[in-house]
């Protein structure tokens, strides 16, 4: 019930914004992804931070039990940086390097944001929050459709900071052990 009320309040406050402000808060693109530690499938909204160079994304990810052994719901905030772009004649844009950093929250009683007072301070880290990094590339195609400005497919190599640390500490941990492939699409408005 609380969630429904919170969603309604957010929706109402958005509707009550002036048209100019509404435009400002409208997302610049929609993103969806397969795998990469942020869900079996994940989807969300994104905003440009600086035109074409960086963006911030908010995604909801879901892992069904058949894929992960247990059903998992998670929220991810991701910041992308893409320093280079090559434009072809036929409206294709190639981004050879897409770097991202993300923070991931997993919902569930067994994942803790804060530990109870019986545990000494810093006894455990918060197990509901983990961060990760990715490196990848993307191809974007500009289009002339009225509601869609461009669409894009991308591929990333993703790892989690925890795994990267353990990789750096142990020769026996291989690069393959800590990496996940991810594929996704972005649709720009």
């Amino acid at each position, binding site marked *: 019930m609380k969630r429904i009320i919170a969603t309604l309040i957010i929706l109402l406050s958005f509707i009550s914004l002036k048209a100019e402000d509404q435009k400002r808060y409208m997302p610049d693109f929609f993103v969806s992804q*397969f*795998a*990469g*530690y*942020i*869900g*079996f499938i994940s989807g969300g909204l994104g905003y440009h931070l600086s035109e074409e160079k960086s963006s911030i994304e908010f995604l909801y*990810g879901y*892992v069904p039990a058949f*894929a*992960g*052994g*247990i059903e*998992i719901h*998670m929220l991810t905030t991701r910041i992308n940086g893409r320093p280079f772009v090559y434009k072809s004649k036929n409206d294709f844009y190639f981004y050879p390097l897409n770097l991202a950093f993300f923070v*991931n929250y*997993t919902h*569930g009683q*067994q*994942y803790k944001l804060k530990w109870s007072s*019986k*545990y*000494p301070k810093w006894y*455990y*880290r918060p*197990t509901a929050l*983990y961060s990760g990094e990715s490196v990848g590339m993307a191809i974007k*195609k500009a*289009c002339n459709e009225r509601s*869609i400005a461009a*669409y894009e*497919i991308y591929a990333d190599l*993703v790892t*989690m900071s*925890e*795994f990267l*640390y*353990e990789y750096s*500490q*142990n*020769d*026996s*941990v291989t690069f*393959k*052990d*800590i*990496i*996940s*492939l*991810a*594929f996704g*699409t972005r649709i720009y408005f």
Partner: protein
Amino acid sequence: MSNLKKYILSFFLILSGCESDYFKYSIHETDSQYDGQNYNIKNAAIIEQSCNNPSEDFTFAVLTDSHSSYDKLEKAINIINSNPDVKFVFHLGDFTETGLLFQYEQTVKKLEKLKIPFLVVIGNHDTLGNGVDIFRNIFGKTDFSFTCNGVFFFVGNNNNWESSIGDVDYVKEKLSQHQSDKFRIIVAHIPMDDDDRYSDEMRQGYIKLCEDYNVDLSLHGHRHRHQYNPAFTTKTAMLVADAIIYNSFYLIHVKSSSIEYEKINF
């Protein structure tokens, strides 16, 4: 077909051709390549079958608290593999940092290099997140018992802050069935004299249990420092093993009338 549809179709065609091994969906996944191995149950049965001569002395190795030091764990395993006298190995728990599947699998990958059977105790760090489920999927039970050359071992989960712990009556019942054995050893991750975790009543209850059921050795990890108390109770010695992260493990020599430990530094 529009260009957009073509892109989406080719995207899913690429996905379907890729090996699932390269795709990970969450740090909290529980599906493991080692699921169903039941190492604890399987290896306890192997030990019972091959060690059934109560008059024979034997040696087992004890490792603990490797956390995410997989290389150090592997180093200790290589040393153990070169010692033909060791019958089996105990890992006393905390072989992960936060109970993640990745950390479980890295540890199992190393333990599988052992040429002798291994048994694994669940530590408090191993219970975090979905750790208990992952443990059960890979190792089988957290609480189990077995006998080796007339020595009874009871292994239990005593991580009372993080998970539900075993039934004391079950421990008593098991111990009562093995009073005629040469020795009785209780193995659990956290030392039972921990006054932060266990109330005075719990600690006194454990001491009474050790005395009532003639427990000879109470074997633990967790503290990351060596402690040996030969008179934990009037009948029981307590050994708290130092962590692998400090480059040490133990050999426990079970002789006809005594249990002796040897600390190996590497």
